[in-house]
């Protein structure tokens, strides 16, 4: 199968600071591909290169077979781009924003309304409200409508869920799933690790370096250590004590538990070690790693 997006060894520096280090990835047609990493990891830079707003220092990229540097005009027609911060005109109304973005792509809202019916529908009662006065979740829906109105084959969404509350985030991902079912390829970035599980495939990125690419399940399966969820009566000092244990690879807080990765699978010795530190009511159960576990493992791995 031919790749929808093909990124080969792209590098980019700003003022001596390397934002991207030979990033390579492939996005398959009609999949949701997630680029997951914290602020400053290089997600926005990579997206800007893909939508032809930036030129890479090295490497090349194609979108549906079109080179992002040579065929940038074509790229701009077939791509729907939603930059961070939603990029709406706050002084224009909801419907004016949508009509405007339709018009600059030479189409009309009526012509392509079917593409956005489910997203834009809930906004219609507010069609004459200024976009600046919408809630975060509604801005996000409007921005997605604007990015979809010219019927793009590829959606590039830069942190569409940042600063939006958990309910709107969930709805947004549901809307993306519908688009994928319609055959649109979606490239989306997020700083929220838990959203990785909603993608078909993800790339984990940190400091301009892509640390791993796979299905969310594949990434999780590749987690190299036995993992336990640990709790005790004294949660505050627990991670510190666990780190002192000689078999501990890592110990991180996860909600109301500590995720403990062991170099050797020996839970009994952990328990007796904790007891020796004065912990009581110790609960220790084997658990499945999540993307966040994998991300932190890869971060630590990369540093060595």
């Amino acid at each position, binding site marked *: 199968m031919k790749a929808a997006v093909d990124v080969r060894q792209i590098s980019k520096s700003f003022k001596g600071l390397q934002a991207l280090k030979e990033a390579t990835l492939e996005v398959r047609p009609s999949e949701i591909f997630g680029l997951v990493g914290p*602020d400053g990891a290089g997600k926005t830079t990579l997206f800007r290169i893909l939508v032809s707003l930036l030129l890479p220092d090295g490497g090349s990229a194609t979108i549906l077979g079109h080179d992002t540097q040579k065929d940038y005009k074509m790229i701009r027609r077939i791509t729907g781009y939603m930059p961070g911060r939603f990029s709406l005109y706050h002084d224009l109304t909801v419907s004016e924003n949508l009509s405007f973005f339709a018009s600059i792509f030479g189409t009309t809202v009526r012509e392509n309304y079917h593409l956005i019916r489910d997203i834009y529908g809930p906004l219609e009662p507010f069609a004459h409200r200024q976009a600046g006065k919408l809630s975060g979740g509604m801005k996000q829906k409007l921005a997605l409508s604007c990015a979809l109105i010219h019927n793009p084959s590829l959606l590039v969404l830069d942190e569409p869920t940042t*600063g939006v509350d958990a*309910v709107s985030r969930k709805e947004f991902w549901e809307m993306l799933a519908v688009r994928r079912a319609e055959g649109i390829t979606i490239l989306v970035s997020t700083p929220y690790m838990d959203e990785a599980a909603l993608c078909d495939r993800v790339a984990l990125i940190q400091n301009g370096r892509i640390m791993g690419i796979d299905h969310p399940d594949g990434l999780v399966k590749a987690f190299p250590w036995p993992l336990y969820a640990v709790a005790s009566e004294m949660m505050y000092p627990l*991670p510190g004590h666990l780190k002192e244990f000689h078999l501990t690879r890592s110990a991180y807080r996860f*909600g109301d538990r500590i995720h403990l990765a062991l170099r050797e699978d020996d839970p009994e010795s952990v328990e007796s070690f904790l007891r020796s530190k004065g912990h009581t009511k110790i609960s220790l159960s084997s658990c499945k790693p999540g993307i966040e576990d994998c991300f932190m493992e890869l971060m630590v791995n990369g540093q060595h």
Partner: protein
Amino acid sequence: MDSIEQVIRARDLTKRFDSFTANDRLSFDVYRGEIFGFLGANGAGKTTAIRILCGLSKPTSGEVSVAGYDVYHQTEQIKEHIGYMSQRFSLYEDLTVGENFRFYAGIYGLPVRTIRPRMDEMLRSLGIGHLKGQLIASLPLGWKQKLAFSVAVFHKPSIVFLDEPTGGVDPITRRQFWELIYEAARGGITVFVTTHYMDEAEYCDRVSIMVDGRIETIGPPAFLKEKHQAASMEQVFLKLARKRQNEREPQ
């Protein structure tokens, strides 16, 4: 529970803007040394409440005291006894680490001879004693946030307000940040924190969830999960926030 000191005591805190009620009869206590998670969807009224608790605006009605001072008349005293940090406003980028500390310590009237040793000790415990002369702008985001927190608690306030302090940082830095929060809480500083990361809600001693200007539920995470029959705080949050949406916008 009478022996435990209340750092925040709110009874029927109400704030109205014209016909819109941003905070509707909020009643809650926050106790000394606890980590209190203040959750809610965008627009639920969190920011309005925090502004009142920080002495930046007055409630329309209700009885509210912070660090023992009344929010109607003693806002100056409140400001002296609280610390504040948000993702948007933290440190001056064009000043060095040391200059930022000295500036904020100066605002709170700390004597020069206490500033220096306390700053040195704080930087040493963070492991960045050597960065004192560095411009803030040259530091990575994670360090900026840790420093912003240290500055916010530098004058040893009774309570520190953290408004989405960990937005956008990597998971390891986020956890390191929370270790700082725990440490401050153990040192007797009460922590009042908002966050969009629901797993962080689990790190709090107690959590309140605001929906539509009201406190919908409040309690320790384990209690809330049991009460709302949910596996995680995220599910508790979604249940409460979605319920509201369905009520407001009938399909």
